């Protein structure tokens, strides 16, 4: 489906189902959820259009964080950690404490 920007029309449910074999009800439900979140707007007889970007960090934030993470990974590699050990360390640290997480699942 690719990248959509403000003002773009989303594929219709039928078009989306035509692109990938997927349950049409699931697509419909996803569109309704996007609409409820105010991200898209359905216009009768015309289609569903992108209203705005999802809330969250501004574009580019990921890049900055990824660069910092890359430095850290290099350091960890130099210390002799394997990929699996790296992943485990991240998981353990994430679970180990509250670093200002507001994960809705935990409420």
């Amino acid at each position, binding site marked *: 489906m690719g990248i959509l920007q403000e003002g773009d029309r989303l594929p219709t*449910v039928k078009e989306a189902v035509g692109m990938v074999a997927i*349950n049409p009800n699931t697509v419909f439900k996803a569109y309704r959820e996007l609409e409820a979140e105010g991200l898209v707007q359905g216009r009768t007889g015309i289609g569903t259009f992108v209203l705005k970007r999802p809330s969250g960090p501004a574009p580019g934030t990921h890049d900055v964080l990824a660069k910092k993470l890359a430095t850290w990974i290099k350091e960890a590699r130099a210390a002799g950690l394997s990929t699996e050990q790296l992943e485990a360390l991240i998981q353990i640290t994430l679970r180990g404490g509250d670093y200002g997480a507001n994960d809705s699942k935990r409420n």
Partner: protein
Amino acid sequence: MEQMTVNAIETQGLGKRYGSFWALQDCTITVPKGSITALVGPNGAGKSTLLKLLVGLNRPSSGSCTVLGDTSGASITPSIGYLAQEVPLYKQLSAEDHIQLGRRINIRWDSELAREHITKLDIPLDRSVKSLSGGQRAQVALALALAKKPKLLLLDEPVAALDPLAREDFLQSLTQAVADAEGELTVLMSSHLINDLERISDHLIVLATGKTQLCDSTSNVQQTHKLLIGARQPQPKNDAFTIVSAVHTPRQTTMLVRLKQPNFHDPQWQIQDVALEEITLAYMRGARQQAHKQLTKGDA
């Protein structure tokens, strides 16, 4: 918009006995209108038996079923498309012959729709069905079932014998047909290829050892089933869940549980999401163990 709770199929304690053997027992299920419902279970679970009862090819030994609002079975036959496991087509006849035949023996029939479906897939209309590949035959059979303009489509293992590409094409055709029908077509499809289900179906029924193990929307199933991992507890008791399956090692207990309420938290347990495939497998395994226990009890 509120979701209408109209069901295309409702059964109550439905059972079928052959001699002293119950092929299907106490089967209570619902299939929401407009859904693609997956009917999953191991061989011999009663899937085909259930489908035959629903379509009216067999009479129940116990219980009742309501299909498209009708309990008698006879009057709704024109509204049901049924595709049996062995893809029953006349091998000597061509796809076009089948379309002509269908036109003569059905009340409602859309020849053009069938031709369109078949030619779109570059399947020759004029060659005998026996010269077609397995995937093409399945597509012809689906096209014929859809030409009836059914409100309910019952498919018995439609993709089991197909290669991955043909399977994908078949599921594509099926989802497209459901999208085109705009909520007026309900599909109940039996399969043991659990992988395809997560994408294709929005409602799930698990049958094992002739009994219903699970019947719910796939999103509910995923929300209420979690994997709990924690320190060993041979007999964990908790009102918040029921245990579907559990594995105990000397130090650790891993359980697949069904939560009474979603959003369960307990510091004792590490909680993980589980794929639909794992959930269905756990139910099937559990049912087999149960059946085995009963058998050995009977011997004692």
